[in-house]
């Protein structure tokens, strides 16, 4: 072999490196291509990877349950019940992830898409679970929870996460939008219809310098959801039975027009289209909003005189009705699901039963959450009779009434957030006067139709 042949020039080296790297990249690509490994383990017989000799009375002794959970605010308080469950069952709970709702959702979507689920129980939400179901990530819960065990849960909460004939989430607590209005600026009676709401908001602005009649969270899903609940009250539907978008009818146009008229009349803060949940709550506690629809979950913050200028100066009311005689009531609930990849589904169900038990509900009710069991509602309403807070009992009774009669989730489809991503910039354009309501919603419907078509809804 000659000396010349032994030499490797830079060009050859780079060529070889390129080929080697390319091969490595292709090799790395290969397993990442079409896959559904998340579903595979579930099909196999339970491997009992953490099997250990069962101790009498401790059915899951020696086993480990892995959990993907929401965290922050008061969410973690419920997990204080876990040591008692571990003591009862002999199992151990290991948290593989903790984050806020949006982080948790993002991780779940990615895990289910990539098939990298290695946990048994996950946090879930009525607005998000459809994506996980579509990705094949969740186990139907029908076989793990008997009718008797489910009987105490508020039926509308369970119905909100029934899809394709199965139950997917066990509710932990819920929230629903509720009208908050100031009693210190002369609002004697809350509006009963959205038409009244609009007129009152304009009047409040006119008669109270420095106060805006109302506000809405003005972007992302927050805006789409508010418009959705108004147009539902006006008799509109987002989709027909074939999942074709139909939200460019009179009801939807009326709802969008109302938002635009309120904004253009100066009855809402000028930079409202840049607000999300925290921003509207801040505006409210700063005392510059007359009335608006808000979640019950902020109540203790609003009634704290240290953080709120409106503490003790507001009242609550059922959401206004629309032309269809329907009360608005955008709602959602947090809960728990079992992953399809779990090898310990019975154990996972047992932990969920423990966390959503009356004890779990009582613990969360004390933190101000609207809990999921009727029996616990009866207890806390009875206790609220003696409260110093004049709104305590009314708030609970109103929330329960709304949960029973007005509870409306967004459509239970995985495309809700992508659809919202189409709709909300167009709603903003309508509000800011860049587009006419009808033309804007026609465009949104057209784009949503394409989205649904791409997602395979029309065969």
């Amino acid at each position, binding site marked *: 072999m000659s*000396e010349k042949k*032994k*030499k*490797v020039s*830079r060009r050859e*080296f780079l060529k070889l*490196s390129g080929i*080697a*790297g*390319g091969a*490595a*990249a*292709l090799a*790395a*690509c290969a397993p*990442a*291509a*079409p*896959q*559904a490994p998340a579903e595979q383990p579930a099909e196999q017989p339970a491997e009992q990877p953490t099997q250990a000799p069962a101790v009498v009375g401790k059915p899951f002794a020696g086993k480990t349950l892995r959990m993907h959970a929401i965290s922050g605010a008061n969410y973690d308080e419920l997990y204080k019940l876990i040591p008692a469950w571990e003591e009862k069952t002999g199992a151990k709970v290991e948290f593989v992830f903790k984050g806020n709702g949006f982080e948790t959702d993002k991780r779940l*979507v*990615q895990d*289910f*898409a*990539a098939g990298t689920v290695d946990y048994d129980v996950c946090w879930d939400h009525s607005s998000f679970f459809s*994506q996980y179901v*579509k*990705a*094949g990530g969740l186990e139907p819960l029908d076989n793990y929870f008997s009718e008797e065990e489910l009987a105490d849960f508020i039926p509308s909460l369970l119905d909100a996460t029934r899809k394709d004939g199965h139950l997917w989430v066990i509710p932990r607590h819920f929230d629903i939008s509720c009208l908050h209005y100031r009693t210190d600026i002369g609002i004697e009676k809350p509006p009963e219809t959205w038409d009244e709401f609009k007129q009152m908001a304009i009047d409040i602005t006119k008669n109270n310098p420095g106060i805006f009649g109302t506000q809405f969270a*003005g*972007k*992302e899903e927050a805006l789409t959801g508010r418009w959705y609940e108004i147009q539902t009250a006006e008799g509109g539907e987002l989709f027909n039975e074939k999942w074709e978008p139909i939200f460019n009818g009179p009801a939807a146009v009326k709802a969008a027009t109302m938002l635009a008229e309120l904004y253009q009349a100066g009855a809402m*803060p*000028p*930079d409202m*289209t*840049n607000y999300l949940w925290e921003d509207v709550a801040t*505006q409210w506690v700063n005392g*510059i909003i007359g009335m608006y629809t808000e979640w019950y979950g902020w109540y203790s913050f609003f009634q704290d005189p240290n953080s709120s200028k409106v503490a003790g100066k507001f009242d609550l009311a059922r959401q206004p009705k629309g032309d269809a005689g329907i009360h608005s009531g955008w709602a959602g609930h947090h809960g728990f699901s079992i992953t399809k990849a779990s090898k310990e589904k019975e154990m996972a169900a047992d932990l969920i039963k423990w966390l959503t038990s009356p004890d779990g509900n009582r613990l969360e009710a004390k933190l101000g959450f609207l809990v999921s069991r009727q029996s616990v509602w009866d207890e806390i309403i009875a206790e609220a009779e003696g409260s110093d807070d004049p709104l305590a009992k009314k708030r609970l009774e109103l929330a329960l009434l709304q949960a029973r009669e007005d509870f409306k989730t967004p459509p239970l489809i*995985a*495309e809700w*957030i*992508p659809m919202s*991503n*189409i709709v909300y*910039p*167009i709603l*903003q*354009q309508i*509000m*800011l006067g*860049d587009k006419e309501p009808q033309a804007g919603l026609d465009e949104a419907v057209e784009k949503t139709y394409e989205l649904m078509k*791409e*997602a*395979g809804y029309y065969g």
Partner: protein
Amino acid sequence: MTTRPLAQEAVASRRRWRISLSERHLPFILLLPSVIIMLLVIGFPMLYSLYLSLTSYTLTTAQNYDFIGLKNYATLLFDDPLFWASFGRTVLFITLAVNIEFLLGLGIAHLIARAIRGQSVARTLIMMPMMFAPILVGFQFKWFFNAQVGLVNNILYAITGEPHFIPWLIDKPLGFISILIAEIWMSTPFMVVILEAGILSLPQEPFEAAEVDGASGWQKFRHLTLPMLLPFIYTAMAIRSLDIARAYDVVQIMTGGGPANRTELIWTYVNRLAFTGQQFAVGAAMSYITVIFSWIFTWWFFYNVIKSRWAGGQS
């Protein structure tokens, strides 16, 4: 008789071969791990996202990797006015930001370079905006421009005595101007640093000769400083152009590209489409289109830099 020399020759040959191998190949062997890591860390994600951009993949249909060729690219290029609006807005943003930063940077650099005392203090102060994370700059300017409690409207109130609720981040031209101001505030110091270094490195003889010839300050600037500073100017502008082309964090915090897409730049649109809208494949296609345009721009820019320098040398 002949075996020993032959054996010695063989040993010597092997040694030469080893030396040759080590001398010639060692650098490549040492580089190999880095090359492999770079290929895996940079090459693989790029190839994978290129592959994704040719499929119908979304996060809601995660198992659907149907190959659809250039459909996503065609949709964006021929059927998405928002893409072109965002693209055009990004080009305008780059043009305005880079030129304003350049003018401000040149002025400040001159002032600092001419200062007799306090140069280092001035330099430190001027560099302070560079010490903030872009995300914090975004929050800071979001508060400055808040309609109700923002600093700007409060200053106007203090001056005029009348309350102002100017929606800086909402109004059509004001929203764009607000994010432009934040970007300029954050990045002008970079221009100052580069241009001041250039000014301080200029030879003094031509200026002394011009002084003797009675040249005015403007003439010295126009005919001496500016031509000699061109390499620094081009370098600073090229770096900033590519940097602003990636503008995301400040804009995302201040306006999120909204409202009503009024401040949508290309990367906020990619984020909204790919992550919020879960249209991963379309987002990947848009990223590739943007990167290709950036390559073309970079080539065009440097082509013109070299051309102008060559032309300058000839004149």
